[in-house]
């Protein structure tokens, strides 16, 4: 949806096709406010940001991010491993195709290898009350975290600079100020923008009952969007197993 489409939808509902009580600037202001409000309440604008720990320091600043909330943190292990693929030893002739014709130009083997990155590890969320009370077996890499204001705090205190991937919800980094622009939030969340604009417009018009009704509509819609798109429920073994009734059928 573009700003024009959103404005047209809102103006249709407000029954004011051309600007009179509600100026275009006000409508744009509310479109941007709606996008920020939807981001804050649902965390729908998601991003993965790299952070680096500092040796002997518990906190890692989030000040450079446009962060609403940290949802999860992953320790990125640096380096790679080279792995030989089993059963893939190939014999290849030298260019003259003569079997062992000289000592320095023989058939030789090629061992195909692949390089894989060391596996990252999702770290667990705790509270500040847990610092020093979790058995960490002299581990010095980040294993637990907690968000505290504009920081994430790490347990155990890292002994080196480690790279972390923070899975964060962010707020919009660009305001919409031209009619052809579109919101940054995912398409499915954009439908909540129009009820928000109508709510603000009715407040300005001092139609408070109408505003309250729109506010209720907006809040219920956000809750539905959170339930449908934001809550993540992992599959269990039982969800991926073929039911007995199917397996035994011949």
């Amino acid at each position, binding site marked *: 949806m573009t700003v024009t489409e959103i404005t047209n939808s809102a103006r249709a509902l407000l029954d004011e096709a051309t600007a009179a009580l509600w100026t275009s600037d006000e409508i744009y202001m509310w479109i941007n*406010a709606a996008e920020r409000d939807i981001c*804050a309440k649902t965390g729908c604008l998601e991003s993965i940001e790299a952070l680096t720990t500092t040796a002997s320091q518990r906190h890692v600043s989030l000040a450079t991010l446009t962060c609403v*909330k940290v949802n999860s943190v992953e320790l990125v292990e640096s380096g790679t491993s080279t792995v030989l693929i089993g059963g893939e030893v190939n014999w290849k002739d030298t260019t003259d195709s003569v079997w062992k014709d000289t000592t320095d130009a023989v058939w030789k083997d090629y061992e195909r290898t692949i390089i894989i990155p060391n596996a990252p590890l999702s770290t667990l969320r705790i509270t500040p009350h847990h610092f*020093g*009370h979790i058995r960490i077996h002299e581990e010095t890499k980040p294993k637990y975290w907690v968000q*505290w204001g504009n920081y994430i705090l790490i347990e155990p205190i890292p002994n080196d600079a480690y790279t972390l991937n923070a899975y964060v919800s962010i707020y919009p980094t*660009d*305001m919409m100020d031209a009619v052809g622009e579109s919101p940054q939030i995912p398409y499915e969340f954009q439908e909540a923008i129009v009820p928000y604009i109508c709510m603000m417009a009715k407040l300005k018009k001092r139609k408070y009952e109408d505003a309250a009704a729109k506010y209720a509509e907006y809040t219920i819609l956000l809750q539905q969007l959170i339930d449908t798109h934001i809550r993540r429920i992992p599959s269990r073994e039982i969800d991926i197993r073929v039911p007995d009734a199917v397996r035994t059928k011949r």
Partner: protein
Amino acid sequence: MAAYSYKLSNILLTVRAMLRETTASFWSDAILTIYINEAIRTIAQRVGAYRTISTAYSTAALTRTVAFSGYKCLAVEYNNKALIKITPLQLGHVRLDGILPKYWFEYGNYIGIEPIPADIYPLTMYLASIPPALSGVNDVPVIPYSLCGLITPFAASRALEQDNKKDVATELMGMFDNDLEFLSQALLPNIPNGIEDVRFS
């Protein structure tokens, strides 16, 4: 275009749009700024939104208490280990294993340490702090960005109350209360993960 900034001049603009008074007439900017600062303090106080980390030192004069500045002290850490929270009733009844700080409690604007510190110990305090007030037009609230949108309905509610529009003021304050609860439930609680959260079962 850059991200929206919740600087004072922009907040005043949104409040005035809601009040239908684009240039100051009944409500001066100074009055609205008072309501805006009240909103920021209310948000910070009610949900502990402005979270800071501060280091304080126990005194060597066998004093149990250490002062802090803020709405609430939520956790205390000494030597990379969180102290365990107790109540003053439990003083002298908890098991000690040395002279180093092990337990703490909050009392007024102080935290009390058990055992009574015998030396100067650095304590890291995790605080719900008091936000500074906005005064310049470019000042930005220190509360989280995601809660700044709530300043407008609160300030507008106070302004309409001043204008004796009680019903409207109540309506807007109800919206503020609902939204604050909605946002703080989603954003602020620190619920630790259990092992079941990372295991495929």
